[in-house]
C-alpha cells in the first residue's frame, strides 16, 4: 500500500511540470483529448483537433470559392501581424503536402513598411524589416519589401482599373485543374528551383525627400480616422502596383472575421456603405486585373492568436497608427472596442455581423464592364456613389452644408458641377477659401474619400500620381462638357 502511495506521489511530482487543467474538459470532436481552446460558446477543441480544424478551414475556404487557378501567381500581403503570418504559414503548409492535396498556385510575399506614416524611427523600421526578412527567406518564396514612401514614385496607371483578361476566366475551374495535372507530368523539379532563384529583395530605397513628403501628407490630415483611411488607400495602391508589375493576378489579405466585422461597421460609419460588398467580401474585383482575396475571413482573431502561439507561427509586432491610442481616437478604433466589448458578453456578435457581410451585394453595374476610369473613385477605385438623384440623403447633406457656409464664389462655377450631376457645390462654397484643386478633386471621389480629403489641410501634399491623374480626369470632363452639345446622347 505504502509503495503504491509513494508511486502516486512521485507521479504527481512529475505531473506538476505539465499541470493538468483544473476543470479538464474533453475535446468535442475526438472526445478523447483534453480541451485546450474554446472556439465557440460550447465548442472546446483539443490541440490536435484544433490544428486539423484550422488547416482544413483554410483549404476549404479556397476550395469552396474556386477563384485561384493552378499555376496562378498569388501575392500574399503580410503585415507581420498574427493573422497574415498564419496565412503565410497555411500557404506553406498547403504547398508542402503530397501531390493530390497540394495547393497549386505560386505564392510571393509583399510587406509594406508604413513606418514612415506611423512615426517610427528608421532603426525601429530596419529592425522589423530584418525580422520579417528572416521569416520570408525561410519560406523560400520570392518577396518584396516596399516602404510606403514609394507611393511618391507611383505611376498614374495605378488609379486606372485594369481590364480583366478574359482568358483565365474562360476555362472552367475544373478544366484548368485537369490541364494543370496533365502539364504537371512534364514538369520537373527545375521549375520549382527557378521559382526560388527568382527571389528578389526589393531594397528599401526611400529618398529623404519622399520621407519628408510622406510626413507632410500625414501631418496634413487632421484626424486619426482620416489618417487610417489614407494609409489604407495608399497601401492598397502600392500592393496593386507591385502585383501588376510582377504579374500577380491575385492578392491574398489576412483579414480575420473579427477584423472584417469591425471593418464592416466602421466603413458604414465612414460613409463607405456603397462599397461594403467589395471591402469585406471574399473576393474583391474592383481593380479588374488584380483580384483581392481574403482567405482568412472564416477565422476569429482568437483562433488565429491561439494557433500562432500554440504552433509557433513566427510573427513580428510592428506598431501602427492606432497603437497605444485610447478607445475614442478614431472611428475604426471606437468600432473595434465596441465590437470586442459586445463580443465578450454576447459571443455571437462577430459572427452575426460577419454573416451579414456575406449577404451583401452591390447593385452597381458589374465591375468588369465599366472600365471607364471617370466612373470610379480616384482613391479607392470603387464605383462612384455620388451620382445620385436630388432626393437623396447625400444631396440633403450637401444642401445643408452649402447653406451653412457663407457663399463667396460665383454661381457659374457651381452650375458647372451641378450639370455634371455629381456633388454640386461640394467644393463650390465650403472650400472656396482653399485651393481650387481641393474642390475639383472632390468631384472625382466617392462620398467617403471626400470626407477623408476634407480633413486634409493641403491637398497638394498628396502623392503626385494622384494629383496628375486628377488633373487628367478633370481636363477630360471639362472637354466633355465643352463638346457635349455636339455629342450624341447616350440612350437611357
Amino acid at each position, binding site marked *: 500500500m505504502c509503495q503504491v502511495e509513494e508511486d502516486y506521489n512521485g507521479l504527481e511530482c512529475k505531473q506538476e511540470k505539465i*499541470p493538468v487543467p483544473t476543470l479538464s474538459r474533453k475535446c468535442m470532436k475526438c472526445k478523447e483529448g483534453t480541451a485546450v481552446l474554446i472556439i465557440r460558446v460550447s465548442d472546446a477543441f483539443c490541440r490536435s483537433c484544433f490544428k486539423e480544424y484550422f488547416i482544413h478551414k483554410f483549404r476549404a475556404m479556397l476550395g469552396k470559392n474556386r477563384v485561384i487557378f493552378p499555376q496562378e501567381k498569388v501575392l500574399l500581403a503580410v503585415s507581420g501581424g498574427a493573422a497574415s503570418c498564419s496565412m503565410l504559414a497555411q500557404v506553406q503548409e498547403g504547398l508542402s503536402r503530397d501531390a493530390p492535396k497540394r495547393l497549386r498556385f505560386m505564392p510571393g510575399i509583399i510587406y509594406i513598411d508604413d513606418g514612415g506614416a506611423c512615426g517610427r524611427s528608421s532603426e525601429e523600421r530596419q529592425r522589423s524589416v530584418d525580422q520579417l526578412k528572416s521569416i520570408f527567406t525561410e519560406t523560400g518564396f520570392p518577396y518584396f519589401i516596399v516602404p510606403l514612401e514609394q507611393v511618391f514614385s507611383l505611376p498614374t496607371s495605378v488609379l486606372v482599373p485594369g481590364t480583366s483578361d478574359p482568358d483565365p476566366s474562360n476555362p472552367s475551374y475544373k478544366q484548368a485543374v485537369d490541364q494543370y495535372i496533365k502539364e504537371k507530368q512534364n514538369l520537373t523539379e527545375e521549375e520549382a528551383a527557378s521559382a526560388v532563384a527568382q527571389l528578389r529583395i526589393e531594397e528599401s530605397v526611400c529618398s529623404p525627400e519622399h520621407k519628408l513628403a510622406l510626413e507632410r501628407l500625414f501631418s496634413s490630415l487632421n484626424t486619426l480616422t482620416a489618417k487610417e483611411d489614407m494609409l489604407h488607400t495608399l497601401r492598397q495602391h502600392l500592393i496593386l502596383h507591385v502585383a501588376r508589375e510582377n504579374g500577380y493576378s491575385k492578392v491574398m489579405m489576412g483579414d480575420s472575421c473579427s477584423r472584417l466585422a469591425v471593418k464592416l461597421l466602421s466603413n458604414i460609419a465612414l460613409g463607405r456603405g456603397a462599397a461594403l460588398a467589395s471591402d469585406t467580401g471574399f473576393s474583391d474585383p474592383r481593380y479588374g486585373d488584380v483580384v483581392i482575396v481574403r482567405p482568412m475571413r472564416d477565422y476569429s482573431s482568437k483562433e488565429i492568436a491561439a494557433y500562432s*502561439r500554440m504552433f509557433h507561427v513566427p510573427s513580428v509586432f510592428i506598431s501602427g497608427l*492606432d497603437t497605444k491610442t*485610447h478607445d475614442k481616437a478614431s472611428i475604426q478604433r471606437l468600432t473595434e472596442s465596441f465590437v470586442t466589448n459586445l463580443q465578450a458578453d454576447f459571443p455571437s456578435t462577430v459572427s452575426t455581423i460577419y454573416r451579414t457581410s456575406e449577404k451583401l451585394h452591390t447593385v452597381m453595374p458589374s465591375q468588369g464592364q465599366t472600365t471607364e476610369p471617370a466612373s470610379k473613385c480616384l482613391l479607392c477605385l470603387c464605383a462612384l456613389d455620388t451620382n445620385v438623384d436630388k432626393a437623396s440623403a447625400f444631396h440633403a447633406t450637401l444642401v445643408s452644408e452649402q447653406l451653412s457656409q457663407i457663399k463667396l464664389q460665383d454661381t457659374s462655377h457651381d452650375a458647372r458641377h451641378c450639370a455634371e450631376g455629381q456633388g454640386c457645390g461640394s467644393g463650390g462654397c465650403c472650400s472656396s477659401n482653399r485651393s481650387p484643386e481641393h474642390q475639383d478633386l472632390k468631384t472625382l471621389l466617392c462620398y467617403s474619400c471626400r470626407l477623408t480629403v476634407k480633413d486634409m489641410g493641403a491637398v497638394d501634399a498628396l502623392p503626385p500620381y494622384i494629383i496628375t491623374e486628377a488633373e487628367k480626369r478633370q481636363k477630360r470632363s471639362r472637354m466633355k462638357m465643352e463638346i457635349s452639345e455636339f455629342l450624341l446622347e447616350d440612350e437611357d
Partner: protein
Amino acid sequence: MNDFIPSHPKIVVIMMIIMKRERKRRELASHYATQTPPPSHAGFIPACTWDMKQLLAWIRGNILKERPELFMQGDTVRPGILVLINDADWELMGELEYQLQDQDNVVFISTLHGG
C-alpha cells in the same frame, strides 16, 4: 520589486507577457534562483496560493507602467486579450478563479488591432 521574493519558494510563475500595447513584446520570465539576484524586470510572485484575479491585480500594480486601461477592464483583462495558461484557454480553467500552480506559464496575447 525585491520585496516580492518569496521566502519559501513554492510558486514560481513563469509569466510571459506579450503586450503589444506596451510597444514592445515584453517577456517577463522569472526563473526562481536563490543564489542570483533577480533581474530587474522579472516578476516575482509572493509564495502563496494565488488565483488569476490576484495575479492580474499584481500585474496592474507592478508591471504596467502606463495606461493600465489598455490591458485591464475592471478586475479582469480587456476583451480582445486572449489569456492562455500553459497553452490552454483560460476559459477552460475557470478564468479569474484559477489557482496558480508552480511553473505555470501564463501568456497574454492581444488580438486587438494596432497592439
